[in-house]
């Protein structure tokens, strides 16, 4: 029988003082003892870099690993829109409570209240911290911060730095980390990919990495391991994720005993540039801040052939404004995405592929002037034009939903600790704060909150209360795991088949988009559970990798990631099948309201599903963490 137990470790008491009390009661590591502890941080995005910098400032020895040639390139850099905080600088009635409330509701009541409250609570500190690092958030003419409202929010609580907020926050965290590298507190390992986790006596004590340049397999030991390795959206092949973004680190953790939670919750971002062709490698997102001023519409007639600008007002359907008068174009991402799909399903799509809807700035330009629009979105407009060769000042943009973010991830407790003691998971890689759907501008918030403000306490509490024996890289466990890793790479090289990695990855992506995408059914999911293993089998039989494993070998790198994507995809389908309700980013056609909105089933599914790995050809075991909502009463989401 399985020994895995889910204990959320949420302290008892009033939600408003939980975190303060926790911090007060947490075990501390004496400052002079901190340098005796080594902490591995995998990933250098917002969660990884901010935690590495902070832990080093506190005195720990940190080893940081990243896949890119520099930690500054982690994919947090591409987040455009902004970061939420409950500062109420705008005096529009925002508060910690409201941010908490909106986040729980936005997540369709599938997140853990206590974690979300803490997130909202530390949000204001984040802004102070980032500003102190030199992050140039936008200012108004009076010299104060300028903020905007973002998808799903009725207050302006989003700080931004042009359309490059992720870049600025990441560069802040990166420079803080580089400062620590210079001082010796952080050792930086670039072009390294974590390929396995080493568990000794039930505790996470190290990792195995592949040096991407030399192909060597390397070992690193530590007292705790932190994963800030992002999401698994690239399982779909096409997504807004960067090319190297992958789910393997989290997946290795799963296979070594960490429960994997809510894999089916995937966020589809409504405002991406539509697909142009078969050889496309990735999708580009246009910040949804565009929805503040742009109006979304399709032609009323399915047989429309005129140019967008020639279609008169009365023949346009501004469907979001029509269906959701209170929120209009600012409905949450899942609602906006699904409605776009409904329109193209009704053949009202626009552009060459008919898989797009219009996002129109004409009225905003008339109302505010071109200068204002240019100041707000100039770089996004430029990017759009460079990709599509169309000028959005003159003709409406064409947009379509694309895979963007994964809310599911490694299950963690209130300490951000997984079911493997000593393994902590931060940012997008964990499942904790966004429930079934993440609000705009909340990903950056969570990444930095986890890294700067949560982990310093919870990791200290762990290291201060556990008795950890010294473990070196010569320990037997490292030998065993390294051998397994080596065997896997040899296996890839020895298949000597005929098809490339991308060939299989694209097939997987198509299955996922078709059956585990925006609208899912029992039948489709069952089909996916038959088809995915078939393609996976082909992959392991007919894959072709040129070159040598002891060398820089991009095909081999990709193969290792895609092999995991097959398994992740299958678990996503399994989880989606199990959850016979619609919630946030998970939409089951069988479970919708009369108006076609997501319909939750709180009786049965007001919970977190956490899967336990039990062996390669065995079904994973489902564990359930029940969720309660004493502070934000359960209601059906309505954005009418």
């Amino acid at each position, binding site marked *: 029988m399985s020994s895995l137990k889910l204990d959320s470790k949420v302290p008892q008491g009033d939600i408003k003082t939980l975190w303060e009390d926790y911090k007060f009661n947490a075990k501390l590591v004496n400052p002079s003892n901190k340098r005796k502890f080594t902490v591995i941080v995998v990933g250098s995005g917002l969660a990884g870099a901010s935690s590495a910098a902070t832990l080093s400032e506190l005195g720990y020895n940190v080893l940081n690993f990243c896949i890119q040639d520099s930690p500054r390139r982690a994919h947090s850099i591409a987040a455009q829109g902004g970061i939420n905080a409950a500062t109420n600088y705008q005096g529009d009635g925002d508060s910690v409570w409201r941010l908490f409330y909106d986040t729980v509701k936005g997540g369709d009541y599938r997140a853990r209240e206590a974690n979300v409250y803490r997130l909202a609570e530390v949000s204001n500190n984040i802004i102070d911290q980032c500003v102190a690092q030199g992050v*140039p958030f936008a200012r108004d003419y009076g010299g104060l911060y300028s903020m905007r409202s973002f998808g799903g929010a009725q207050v302006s609580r989003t700080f931004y730095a042009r359309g*490059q907020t992720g870049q600025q926050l990441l560069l802040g965290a990166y420079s803080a980390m580089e*400062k620590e590298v210079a001082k010796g507190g952080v050792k930086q390992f670039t072009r390294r990919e974590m390929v396995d986790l080493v568990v000794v006596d039930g505790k996470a004590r190290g990792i195995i990495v592949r040096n991407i340049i030399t192909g060597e397999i390397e070992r690193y030991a530590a007292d705790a391991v932190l994963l800030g390795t992002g999401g698994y959206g690239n399982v779909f092949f096409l997504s807004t994720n960067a090319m190297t973004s992958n789910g393997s680190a989290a997946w290795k953790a799963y296979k070594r005993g960490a429960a994997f939670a809510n894999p089916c919750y995937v966020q589809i971002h409504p405002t991406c540039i539509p697909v142009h*062709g078969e050889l496309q490698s990735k999708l580009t997102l246009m910040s949804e801040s565009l929805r503040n001023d742009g109006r979304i519409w399709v032609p009323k007639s399915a047989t429309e052939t005129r140019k967008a600008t020639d279609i008169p007002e009365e023949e346009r359907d501004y469907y979001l404004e029509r269906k959701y008068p209170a929120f209009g174009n600012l409905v949450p991402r899942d609602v906006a995405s699904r409605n776009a799909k409904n329109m193209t399903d009704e053949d009202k799509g626009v552009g060459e592929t008919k898989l797009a809807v219009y996002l129109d700035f004409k009225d905003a330009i008339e109302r505010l002037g071109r200068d204002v629009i240019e100041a707000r979105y100039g770089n996004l407009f430029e990017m759009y034009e460079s990709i599509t060769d169309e000028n959005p000042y003159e003709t409406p943009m064409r947009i379509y939903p694309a895979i963007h973010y994964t809310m599911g991830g490694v299950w963690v407790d209130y300490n951000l600790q997984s079911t493997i003691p000593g393994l902590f998971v931060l940012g997008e890689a964990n499942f904790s704060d966004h429930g079934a759907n993440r609000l705009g501008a909340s990903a950056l918030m969570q990444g930095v909150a986890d890294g700067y403000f949560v982990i310093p306490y919870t990791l200290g509490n762990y290291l201060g209360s556990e008795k950890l024996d010294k473990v070196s890289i010569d320990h037997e466990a490292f030998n065993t795991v390294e051998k397994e890793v080596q065997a896997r790479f040899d296996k890839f090289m020895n298949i000597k088949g005929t098809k490339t990695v991308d060939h299989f990855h694209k097939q997987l992506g198509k299955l996922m988009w078709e059956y585990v995408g925006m609208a899912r059914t029992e039948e489709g999911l069952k089909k996916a559970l038959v088809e995915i293993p078939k393609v996976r089998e082909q992959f392991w039989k007919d894959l072709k990798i040129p070159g040598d494993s002891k060398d820089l070998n991009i095909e081999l790198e990709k193969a290792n990631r895609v092999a995991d994507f097959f398994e992740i995809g299958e678990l996503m389908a399994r989880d989606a099948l199990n959850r016979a309700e619609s919630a946030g980013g998970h939409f089951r056609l069988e479970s919708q309201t009369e108006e076609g909105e997501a319909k939750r089933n709180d009786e049965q599914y007001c919970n977190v599903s956490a899967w336990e790995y039990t062996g390669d050809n065995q079904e994973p075991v489902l564990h359930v963490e029940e969720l309660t909502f004493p502070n934000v009463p359960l209601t059906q989401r309505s954005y009418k």
Partner: protein
Amino acid sequence: MSDEMTLYLQVWRQKDSKSKGGFQNYKVENVSGDMSFLEMLDMLNENLAREGKDPIQYDHDCREGICGACSCMINGEAHGPGKKTTTCEMHMRHFNDGDAIIIEPWRAKAFPVLKDLAVDRSAYDKIIMAGGFIEVKYGNAPEANSMMVGKEVADFAMDNAACIGCGACAAACPNASAMLFTAAKTTQLSLLPQGKVESKKRVQSMIKKMDELGFGNCTNERLCEAACPKGISIISIARMNREYMGTLLKSDY
């Protein structure tokens, strides 16, 4: 489709940092104008992999012009012919059927070639380590709105903060100077009240590090500015020089 092109590529191939490299010729067919430059290279790589040949190594990640990973000299220009674009943002519609395209890695002493088109740019991280930060410790930050900064100043700081650290400036410069990269950081930080305090020390140590790493001097060629995909202006270099001179003058008082 009629708008598909055939292109003749000359690509720099180099096994590793120790080997000698050279150009190899490739013909790519069925390139559509909507493809990005890297998608065109992907297509070539896919063919190479299928034939069991070693694919071309090039750095890339975000493919939307923000991570700074991509880095090709295309027909002698850093990031190719487009203005204010990175290699990944360039689309094939800027080329014509039958064109010959020469693709090389960044050429700068401080950026040694690792393989084919990929170079080692850790020197830029080292320049940041020398002072490209503000010494603020976790938990000690003052309330954000307690410091006011005029919009123009904040905007200018942001213009400089937009640097993606791709290395095009040094690659384009005949002296392989890293002045634009360094100046963008010192300018961003010294414009803001929270960064001003350390600006003297920062400018000195970053410039010193830049020299140590083997980057050349600035002789006002302005090619860095032309190559910069984020449009960072050489005004920042002038500003940094002024700051640097200031530190020399005042260092003896």
